[in-house]
């Protein structure tokens, strides 16, 4: 899929935007992932835990970054994928995800092994999650 693209260091990975995120998406993600922690779906529980309201599952945000990763690496090209969650995402926010190629090496079989930095942010500059991926395309 992405094999014909000549990736090089500094290239921007075309990202995408998802949102505004509805609280129903958090409920749907709970069912899809099996993560029924009420922090993500029950506003009164979240408030009792000291938050303003429910927050998205971190893995929902990472899943979006995973979509970005397979957009570029295909379903079997990923070698490593790592994400650190930086700030909570709330209903009504829009996620913007993207990335930058930080390392690219041609292999003897003409494929390219590359490393990229990935990020997810809200509408402002606040980072929700940052990560890295390594893949062969």
């Amino acid at each position, binding site marked *: 899929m992405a094999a014909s693209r000549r990736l090089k260091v500094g290239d921007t990975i075309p990202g995408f935007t998802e949102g505004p995120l509805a609280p129903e998406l958090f409920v749907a993600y709970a069912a*899809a992932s099996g993560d029924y922690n009420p922090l993500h779906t029950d506003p009164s529980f979240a408030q009792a835990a000291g938050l303003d309201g429910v927050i998205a599952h971190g893995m929902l945000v990472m899943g979006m970054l995973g979509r970005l990763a397979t957009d570029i690496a295909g379903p079997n090209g990923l070698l490593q994928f790592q994400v650190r969650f930086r700030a909570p995402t709330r209903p009504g926010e829009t996620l913007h995800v993207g990335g930058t190629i930080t390392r690219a090496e041609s292999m003897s079989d003409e494929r390219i092994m590359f490393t990229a930095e990935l990020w997810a942010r809200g509408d402002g500059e606040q980072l929700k999650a940052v990560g890295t991926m390594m893949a062969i395309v």
Partner: protein
Amino acid sequence: MIDPANLGRTFGPYTVTVEREHIRALAVTLGETDPIYHSVEAAQAAGLPDLPAPPTLATRYGLWANSALLAELEAIGAPLPRLLHGEQSYEYHLPIFAGDELIAAPELVQLEQKTGKSGPFEVLTLETCWYNDQSELVLTDQLVVVVRGEEG
């Protein structure tokens, strides 16, 4: 507080079957529209044996939908409602497809006790090596969760 004697212990082992429905449901909520994650015909047309696992699928089996593991974590003092995911990493060794049977025994590889603005909390790191039914290592999953202190 979690007894530090739990450091290094393993949970399980757990055997799971990767279901097509798990892959489709995850793809739908993530907005992943590539038909290979939805249709077996599309996956096979792309040269794959069945629906491929999205990159984050394994964490379903390695924690969040693993009720036996969640019960064990609760028993040592880390109940689900107090868990917050801090960090997640994967190393992919072999592709995973719907129908695959995987087995793993997650290991508690790190346990830290810390104090923050709202009191003490703990950070635990679980490392899970998933093997297929040929005993081949297919995926290494490492997750860091914060165990929030008890309220009040």
